[in-house]
């Protein structure tokens, strides 16, 4: 009799304890850091966003943001790379811009099997009142990311990684592209369809995504490229420093955009050092959310 009672209780307790694969993937942690990023209200033209070395930026007070290796989700970053960023921010009532500066002795923009790009991202919680784990959010607690990558910018500026790395390579699948042979619109479509990632519209294809790409994430393997892309920006590598500006509208109708119209939210940063094979989750991140104050 006693056994009859104990056994179902044991089974019920076991079921309660047994974690689902997704739940055990990562120990969730919401951490709010004492540091603040204050976005100063100041009128500026959008041309300032594409001029990261402009004196206006460099004369602003900077917050030093400490970064640590991403060590919660495999693959983790084994060795530290970029350990701190200098962050400045301005807003003009319509746009908010982040100026991010860091020391980097090498400018890494090349894309090859064994070459990785430098990059930086800014992240906001979709719900500023209850931010999720800053490391890519969590199920039903999404985050909004603005990602800048040197390789995407170079591709946008016209760099062909095929020509850069393999100037003498030739593929003969497309006789339309022979010198002096004009290509019809129908042939352009046919050429495009021979590259599956291009044909299905993957934004990772060099030159496809905007210089600053907006992503929406609900955990590490639930990352989608937002349908509406509003962000702008630019990076300049000068004197062994990266100067990157990332900007977005403060108010947008897009429900996948993190709301910033309340005057405050949270923000976190991540940074990739290409020369150290930083890519994807192998990145340096802030230890938690920093409070974001948007001046008016």
């Amino acid at each position, binding site marked *: 009799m006693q056994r009859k009672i104990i056994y179902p209780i044991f089974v019920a307790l076991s079921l309660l304890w047994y974690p689902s694969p997704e739940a055990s993937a990562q120990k969730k942690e919401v951490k709010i850091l004492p540091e603040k990023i204050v976005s100063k209200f100041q009128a500026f033209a959008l041309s300032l966003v594409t001029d990261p070395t402009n004196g206006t930026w460099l004369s602003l007070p900077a917050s030093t943001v400490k970064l640590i290796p991403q060590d919660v989700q495999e693959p983790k970053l*084994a060795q530290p790379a970029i350990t701190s960023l200098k962050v400045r921010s301005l807003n003009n009532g319509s746009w908010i811009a982040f100026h991010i500066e860091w020391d980097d002795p090498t400018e890494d923009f090349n894309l090859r099997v*064994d070459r990785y790009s430098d990059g930086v991202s800014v992240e906001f919680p979709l719900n500023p009142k209850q931010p999720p784990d800053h490391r890519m959010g969590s199920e039903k607690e999404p985050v909004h990311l603005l990602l800048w990558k040197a390789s995407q910018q170079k591709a946008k500026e016209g760099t062909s990684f*095929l020509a850069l790395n*393999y100037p003498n390579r030739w593929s003969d699948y497309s006789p339309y592209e022979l010198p002096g042979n004009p290509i019809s619109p129908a042939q352009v479509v046919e050429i495009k369809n*021979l590259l599956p990632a291009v044909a299905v519209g993957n934004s990772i294809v060099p030159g496809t995504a905007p210089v600053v790409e907006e992503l929406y994430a609900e955990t590490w393997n639930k990352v989608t490229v937002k349908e509406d892309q509003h962000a702008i920006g630019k990076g300049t590598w000068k004197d062994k420093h990266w100067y990157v500006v990332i900007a977005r509208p403060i108010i947008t109708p897009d429900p996948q955009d993190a709301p910033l119209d309340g005057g405050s939210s949270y923000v976190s940063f991540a940074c990739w050092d290409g020369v150290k*094979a930083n890519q994807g989750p192998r990145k340096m991140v802030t230890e938690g959310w920093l409070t974001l104050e948007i001046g008016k």
Partner: protein
Amino acid sequence: MSHQVLNWQINRKMTYWYPEHRPRRQFAGVFDINKCIACQTCSLACKTTWTSGKGQELMFWNNVETKPWGGYPTGWDVKTLGLLGPQKWGADEYEGATVFEAAPKGERVLHYSPEDGDWCNVNLGEDECSGIIEKGAYLKIPHAVCFFYLQRICNHCTYPACLAACPRGAIYKRPEDGVVLIDQKNCHGHRECLKACPYKRIFFNVVTGTSEKCIACYPSLESGKSNRCFETCIGKIRLQGWISTPEKAQEDNPVDFLVHIRKVALPLYPQFGTEPNVYYIPPKQADPVFLRQMFGPGVDKAIATYKNAKNDPELLGLLLLQGSSDRIIERFKVKDGTAIGYTDKGAEIVRVPLKEPLYVRPYRDVALDVFRHNVT
């Protein structure tokens, strides 16, 4: 995160990133190394079908390399084995660590990343034999000095390392046929799959910024036709079909028969732990010690069984059916000196005689008043 899954090739449970979830049926291939002449027709059939695009100039989803020295990318096997270090096969099971179990802290899979130059020498070491032929050497089996060809496509593993490693979840294994694919819409070009695949069957395309791989010609597969590299093999070394787990093996299923019943076909580097689904009939002339490292402890028996095929009508018949049709032979039967291949529903596809009939013609063609050069 790790789950305990059963890997029958190493005859034990092992850790894997996801729980065990086998497809409804699993695509598989059997390659008879003994018959391959490295004509590369398979490589070119694949190349012209799938990888003739920009950024795919040196991308070969199918390649044939010369062992022991050849490798594409360069040294892929030596490097992975080196990372794994010395490991041990026990009497009944593999006692060493797989690439999942040997993963360093913070990683999902034990891995290395080939350098760009490693992908630039597609057939390095072609026809180079294992050593110098000493004076006075004579031909014997196994050869004192040897080489053989290794035909390679994606193994469409049951426990793909590429799939485990992808942080985006952009790689998936189709439930209907076990084919492993990279979602070209969601791949973010992190290259974790490329690093993790111990067979190095993932390729990076600098034009698309994504990783690409063998798709097992799934449009053909879905219509019951052989893949391009299987269909075009002039040496008829390839047999395509579906593999069961050992306890569900069926004698009339060609792949099951070769892998589970006669055990002449073995997985490549089963110790990696991915349960690859391309199987090899090992070359009978090669060094058995080298072969045991490649194909596990079943090599000696496999070669003995293969050499005895002349006394084993079923095995002989199936080996003769290999490559005899562009349809996938899902069932077979050997009867009255004839091997017959069928579809899954029992429709006959092809029949071949176990012994080719011999016709001898007179040397002189009376009608044309000429002598014949060939009379058989």
